């Protein structure tokens, strides 16, 4: 047993014990659980906002969401899903899995870990409370372009600014913790090129976070001083430029979208080999592809600004650089498919979600490629085509990634198998719902329906109605997901240590549920086959 500081916790009332356990914990598994639940709760809050949006767009005309409310919903939905659902979801998975996958006793900086988490509930309470403020919540979209956020932003903009600062602190500290854990606490023998891919992708994601979250902090700070302290960063009359805002924001924003997907790549690369019962095809190329995607992501932010009148050379450079990203992305997709080639595949729920991920993410990648073409983007920009694009990479991409990871590792966390039949129902309803919701948006966008507008003209009615039905289905089936998770936590068929026949990696050498403290004495690596517990 490792030396511990204070073992003798006196008898306390259950409430105090509960609070002190979750508020003061430094354990990576408990903190991972906290992150996952926060992400889950915000998923429903952000989802409810999406329902408001889709109900309003069910028919042309203004039904019940006034334009101002509609804009607030669009803004908060985006902010909550990006910063409150996908990012904490991935960090929660990192917390649970990284130490177990690299044979470490915990995260490298356990107290900092608790700090990173507990900043978030405060930050999102602040953000959501803006709905009840005078002037309403922020209404300028998650991208908070100047001058919408500077000159015209409601008073709650400042709450949003400080909320973003808090999220930024949380993310940077969390990312530092992850980098240090991976570099410093790997078990002996696990060289960098032997790390599981989830670990690799998180390492690169954490690097991106450290590089770009401070830039976002700079952006909100400039918005704040432009609003209140007379600076003119984003005001032409003072020699600044509203476009400067977009440059700073997208310098953060494009790497951010990779932050939202790279851990998903890692998850797919763990799950597909398990259920194909084959080694991952092209491990090295996967690592290099991830790294090149990350590096290229720093020079392509201009593709969000094609229509702002950038100089021609800049447009061309950004266009080619963006299309270049499709190459490493293609390598990854190829490797996943090649991994399955001639495998003996079974289709348990995690594998289904991973397959949904590969196929539908690829559709999102293709629409991204279309958007990367300057002349084409002149037409597509700010239409629902962009909405379709990023929802294809984010919902069946990032969110399905998280869901497949949850199904995959939940038996390890809880010791119980989830209900396979319900899991399959969840998958099929989700995949039908996703496509029904977002596929028609491609057509709407190509036909010219602008995004972020509460009303639309009559010819867009049919596709919008389809999308709204799909959204309702997609939303409802997540309640089923919640039910499945709770049911698994409370009981079910006992899981074995290895859980999945084809699973490899240190986490599967542990019992299920994994004990609170694991690998206090370092495990053997690479794991000999007899170290996996038998059924």
């Amino acid at each position, binding site marked *: 047993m490792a030396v511990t500081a204070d073992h003798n916790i006196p008898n306390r009332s259950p409430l105090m014990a509960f609070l002190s356990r979750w508020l003061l914990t430094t354990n990576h598994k408990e903190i991972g659980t906290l992150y996952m639940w926060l992400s889950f709760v915000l998923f429903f809050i952000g989802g409810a906002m999406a329902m408001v949006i889709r109900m309003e767009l069910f028919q042309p005309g203004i039904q019940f969401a006034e334009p101002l409310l509609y804009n607030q919903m669009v803004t908060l939905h985006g902010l909550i899903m990006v910063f409150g659902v996908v990012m904490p979801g991935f960090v929660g998975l990192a917390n649970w899995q990284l130490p177990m996958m690299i044979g470490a006793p915990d995260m490298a900086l356990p107290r900092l870990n608790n700090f990173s988490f507990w900043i978030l509930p405060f930050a999102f309470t602040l953000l959501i409370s803006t709905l009840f403020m005078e002037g309403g919540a922020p209404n300028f979209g998650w991208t908070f372009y100047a001058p919408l956020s500077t000159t015209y932003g409601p008073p709650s903009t*400042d709450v949003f600014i400080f909320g973003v600062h808090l999220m930024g602190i949380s993310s940077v500290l969390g990312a530092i913790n992850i980098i240090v854990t991976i570099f410093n606490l790997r078990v002996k023998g696990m060289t960098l090129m032997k790390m599981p891919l989830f670990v690799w992708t998180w390492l690169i994601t954490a690097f991106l976070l450290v590089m770009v979250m401070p830039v976002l902090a700079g952006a909100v700070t400039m918005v704040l001083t432009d609003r209140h302290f007379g600076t003119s960063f984003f005001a032409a009359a003072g020699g*600044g430029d509203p476009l400067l805002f977009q440059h700073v924001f997208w310098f953060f924003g494009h790497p951010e979208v990779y932050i939202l997907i790279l851990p998903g790549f890692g998850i797919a690369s763990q799950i597909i080999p398990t259920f194909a019962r084959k080694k991952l095809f092209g491990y090295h190329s996967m690592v290099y592809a991830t790294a090149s995607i990350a590096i290229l992501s720093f020079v392509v932010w201009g593709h969000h600004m094609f229509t702002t009148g950038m100089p021609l050379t800049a447009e061309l450079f950004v266009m080619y650089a963006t299309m270049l990203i499709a190459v490493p992305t293609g390598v990854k997709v190829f490797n996943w498919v090649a991994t399955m080639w001639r495998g003996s595949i079974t289709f348990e729920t995690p594998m289904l979600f991973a397959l949904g991920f590969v196929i539908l993410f690829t559709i999102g990648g293709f629409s991204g490629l279309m958007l990367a073409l300057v002349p084409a983007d002149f037409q597509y920009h700010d239409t629902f085509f962009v909405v379709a694009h990023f929802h294809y990479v984010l919902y069946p991409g990032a969110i399905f990634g998280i869901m497949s990871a949850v199904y995959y590792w939940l038996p390890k966390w809880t010791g119980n198998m989830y209900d396979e039949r319900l899991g399959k129902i969840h998958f099929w309803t989700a995949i039908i719902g996703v496509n029904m919701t977002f596929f028609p948006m491609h057509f709407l966008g190509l036909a010219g329906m602008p995004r972020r507008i509460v009303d639309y003209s009559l010819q867009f009615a049919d596709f919008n109605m389809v999308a709204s039905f799909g959204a309702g289905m997609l939303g409802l089936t997540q309640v089923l997901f919640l039910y499945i998770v709770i049911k698994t936590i409370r009981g079910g068929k006992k899981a074995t240590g290895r859980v999945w026949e084809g699973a490899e990696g240190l986490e599967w050498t542990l019992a299920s549920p994994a004990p609170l403290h694991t690998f206090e004495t370092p495990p053997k690596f690479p794991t000999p086959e007899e170290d996996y517990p038998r059924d």
Partner: protein
Amino acid sequence: MIEAPRYYVPHSSPWPIIGSTALAITAFGAVSFIHQSTEKVAAEGSFGEPIFFIGLAMIAFMMFGWFGIVIRESVKGMNSVMMDRSYRMGMAWFIVSEIMFFAAFFGALFYARIMSVPWLAGAGNNLETHVLLWPEFADTWPLFMTPGGGITEAMEAWGLPFINTVILVTSSVTVTFAHWALKKNHRVLLPIWLAITVALGTTFLTLQVIEYQEAYGELGLTMGSGIYGSTFFMLTGFHGFHVAMGTIILFVMLLRSLRGHFSAENHFAFEAASWYWHFVDVVWLFLFTFVYWF
């Protein structure tokens, strides 16, 4: 003898939650304070200010408590070599994130100087912008007159800013001397060099206050004087804030060294402080070059 743990994992700690509560209070207080004391929202009441400062005090309290335990653990010898490496890497990556924070504002500075100001004066394909909006506007840097007509004078590089450059570079040297003294276990020279470094930091800050007074009082150079003033105060302001933090940290190191906390082999806190100080110094060299000089 009990075998030292492979990696010490603390069991639970109250400080993080105190810290996150403190941050939230500070954030809430800051918003109210700003709303109540600036014109844009002009909210009634004045509770924002005390809440903001209570939040800051709580953050300070958290730091005392948190660093306090870490120091005690280190003194008790609970930190293995691996733990030490975690702290080192953590600090290094923290500094990387700080560099990127400054990079955002440097980016704004370069954008203004290379893009937006020339464009407003008609460069590139922006002739019509110039002719139709602000035909009087001329492209200069420092920007003496904004398109909107605001006027300011420029801050001279070779006065106080240059003296401050010398001071800060010297302080980077003295902190290194302190480090050498520590490595040789020289218990007299260490606090002396540290004290000199702290004194230099304090002088820097004092001179910067004088410089700001001159800017506001005599030059008409304010946060409101267009993009020149904006970038000037954003960059020098955040830098000054970091110098202030660094000075406080070094002062704490001075007190700790007087209490005999560091040994020639084990003194990571001191090293972290000196890394931070060098970082602040390098940022200043960029500032001096691009904000004041060229």
